[in-house]
């Protein structure tokens, strides 16, 4: 069997550019897709990975929205915070960064329903944004000491008299290894290693007196292990790369590839020392990423659906309304339903959520909660083809009754294919 992580050698045209921009980010306008197609895979990928020159006003606009998140978090307005994040994802000149932040928000699922501190939640999201494309070890270490995570998994109350297994269990089960690759005793021992990791005035603090300094044995490693040692031990397990590879494939390809391909992706991850930007540079340029088996069929999450609709159409929408719409579609940012994050794939679609998607599309086309910049006075066949291509990935002839371009946008977004990407 051929290595699917080998560099992609096929053509890089409009379809491939759209595929890259949809999966690595949140879609793009027709002109952006055209520009990327002209650049070729290598240069296009360099832009996606954030090495291009960004227009100053665009960067400033995005920074303003990031700063706004911090202010609304202080005011304790969760809907505004959700909306501000969505707006920043729409405006971001670095969509891959935002997309990875969304991935990590799901991977390290933390809910404000329990944390009850929006400032901590927003700081955690900033952590995902800043470290999400760096080394996984660095991110894992920071998340393990993140105040929101410590509160969410009861790590803040971890002492040698009363070691809390919750955090240790999730580190192994959900963050690094997955079920079946550790024993119950490993969790008990790891919990002892994490003792003393506490919160003081909302910040992480290591309380030496509360730490169990005795000898522990975790996943075969023995000694006076601390919390950071346990994280290193987890990452040194061979299952760690495979666990992450499967999760990344499910997120970016829409389904988990066969085991052999997972092993190849995991090997690439190991070779890049779990550095996400370096790994994704290889992944997005691989035969696997452009394989026809994974080009269609990935159902967009609600956040991806609304953000990609707005980015593709260069449209605006009320931020607080966006947050409400995402919730109605089944995804409430900063409040995942459990420690395992949100469901994926076909679970996003049911009779209630598909109706919510259609309502959003209708209101978007009506301009009910925002203005569509795509508005054009004279719809022509070429423009409709462009619109159809960016939203559906194919040329579709709309019914003749639609006169304005925005109505056609609504028609295209209501198609089943628009839910995929």
């Amino acid at each position: 069997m051929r290595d699917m992580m080998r560099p992609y050698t096929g053509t890089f045209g409009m379809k491939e550019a759209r595929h890259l921009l949809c999966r690595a980010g949140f879609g793009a306008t027709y002109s952006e897709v055209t520009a990327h197609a002209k650049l070729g895979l290598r240069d296009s990928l360099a832009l996606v990975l954030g090495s291009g020159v960004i227009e100053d006003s665009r960067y400033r606009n995005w920074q303003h929205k990031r700063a706004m998140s911090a202010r609304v978090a202080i005011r304790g307005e969760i809907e505004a915070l959700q909306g501000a994040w969505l707006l920043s994802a729409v405006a971001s000149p670095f969509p891959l960064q935002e997309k990875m932040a969304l991935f990590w928000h799901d991977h390290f699922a933390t809910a404000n329903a329990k944390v009850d501190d929006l400032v901590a939640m927003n700081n955690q999201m900033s952590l995902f944004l800043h470290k999400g494309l760096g080394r996984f070890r660095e991110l894992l270490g920071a998340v393990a000491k993140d105040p929101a995570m410590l509160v969410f998994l009861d790590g803040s109350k971890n002492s040698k008299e009363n070691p809390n297994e919750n955090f240790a269990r999730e580190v192994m089960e959900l963050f690094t290894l997955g079920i079946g690759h550790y024993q119950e005793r490993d969790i008990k021992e790891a919990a002892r290693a994490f003792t003393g990791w506490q919160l003081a005035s909302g910040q992480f603090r290591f309380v030496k007196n509360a730490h169990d300094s005795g000898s522990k044995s975790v996943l075969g490693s023995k000694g006076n292990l601390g919390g950071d040692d346990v994280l290193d031990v987890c990452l040194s397990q061979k299952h760690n790369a495979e666990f992450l590879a499967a999760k990344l494939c499910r997120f970016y390809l829409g389904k988990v590839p066969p085991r052999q391909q997972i092993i190849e992706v995991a090997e690439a991850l190991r070779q890049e020392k779990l550095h996400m930007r370096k790994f994704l540079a290889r992944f997005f340029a691989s035969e696997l990423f452009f394989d026809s088996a994974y080009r269609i069929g990935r159902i967009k999450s609600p956040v991806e659906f609304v953000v990609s609709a707005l980015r593709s159409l260069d449209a605006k929408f009320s931020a607080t309304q966006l947050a409400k719409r995402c919730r109605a579609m089944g995804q409430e940012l900063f409040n995942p339903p459990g420690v395992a994050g949100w469901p994926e794939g076909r679970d996003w679609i049911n009779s209630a959520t598909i109706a919510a998607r259609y309502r959003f599309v209708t209101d978007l086309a009506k301009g009910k909660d925002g203005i569509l910049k795509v508005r054009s006075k004279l719809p022509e066949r070429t423009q409709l083809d462009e619109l159809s291509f960016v939203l559906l990935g194919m040329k579709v002839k709309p019914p003749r009754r639609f006169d304005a371009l925005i109505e056609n946008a609504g028609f295209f977004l209501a198609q089943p294919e628009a839910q995929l990407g």
Partner: protein
Amino acid sequence: MRKLLFLCTAFLAVVPLVAASAQQPSHKIPGDCQLYLEVSHPRELVRSVLGSNLIAVGRSTNLLAAFTQEKGFQAITKIWQTIEGKLTGPASIGVRFGVAGPSVFFCGAYSGNPDLKEIAQAIASLDETFRPTDRGTQKGIRWLALGKAGILGVDKEFLYWSERPSSLREVSRLKDENSMGNQRRYLLAQKESRQADFLVLVDTEELLKDGELDEDGRKNAFEILLLKGFIDDLTHAKFGYAWGTLGDVIKLRARLVNKKPRSKSWQLLDRSHKALPSVPNQSAEFHLERDLAAFWRQRIDLVPESGRPGLAQFAQTMNIFLAGFPFSDLMEKTGRGIDIVVRESVAGDSPPDMLLPEFALVLDTTFSSREKERFMVAYQTAIGVINADAGEKRRQPMLQGSLQVDGIHILTARFLADPNTGKRETEYNFTPSLAFAKDKLILSSSSKLAADVVHALQSSNLEDQKLRQGDRLSMSGPAVARMFKLNRDNMIEARVLSEGEDEDESAAFVDAVTSLAATIRTLRINHVSLPKSTVWDLYIKTDSLDRGKK
């Protein structure tokens, strides 16, 4: 609600800029036109709109956003430059709301050469984007498509322009004698507006058919209490028209014609009442005639099912606070006059993040002295509960206090300073206060305003106050503008969140609204309900409004 916002904005944007004298229109209105504006001197109107910053006011609306988007705005300017001087008589602007937003058309009496070549060539030379294409003739109108600029047409009498080709069909109806549904309404409106400078005709039934307003007005008890009477006016109206005269004082009058009698159970009252004495530096006063006792009795019918548990919870909480005095009994002793006094806030020791104005709610009551005392105790209990909650939320508690003004005891409270930072919770300039004076209950966001209201009530003889009927709102534009300036950053942020706009766009909107408010020296709104119609009067006294000169 968005359509209503559009109407209000369009109205505010256009009206102060029109300078005209009345002339009889000679053209007809399309049958399905939902908003129709007629002016005698369109050149001045369009010039004013294009030249002033008021165009930015419309950024939030679909219509004016379409105008101000770069290409469309340039197109209108260029078309105008081309046809300027060729319009001689009255003109109209019509708007039809569709699924894809409003479509706009313009029609003006034309005395130039009906050959379009001259105009087409002039436009084509301006920008290659607007290269003209002859689209042929329809119902006597010769049409010329102008790319993204819209579509231009001409016949022997009129020059037509529409920003969207789909409006071609609508504009063509100008020539159709059978689609004159609006003509009867127009004639009716014209009778009342003979001396007016302009006339706006609105098909309210069509505009509000999706029920947005009705839904908006029934979300919770407070909105129902505040808005339901006004919303009933709108939702029961067949159509409306507004006309006005322009001068140093701009007078606008609007009439809504009802299609059926409005609900008798809950409507605006028009009882004459004594004006509340003004307090120093007052920015605005809002007056409402609402029978609170009747509202409380009818709450089950008035409030939707989803809002009833909240209301029951509120009553239960009040019963606990009042400890033995049933809240419903107190509600029976409330009167009909509700006044809201608004005043500019003055920054305290530490600059606040958000400088909201101070406001006071003044309600007529007939409480006994014992009931007044218990109500004051209930207030203190409520502050205690807020303090208990503040502990959980890691916020600073409020220290209760009191002051005496003209022999009246005012209860108040203020946030304690943060022991770590020394800062006080000044975000909302909040020193909630409560007092009873002259059988009025005063609930104020600020102890200073409460003291001034008490002093104003105690030192004036209410019987000597002017009797007034239907006055709803009086407002000082510069005071509102100052408040907008102080809260500029917060308003921009709120708009970014609510509209999804970029910072620059929001800033342009906020600045434009602030500029507009600053030009209005005073604004007064009067409202009278009649059996078959409702009349709104707006008096706007402006400062240096540079009409049509830019």
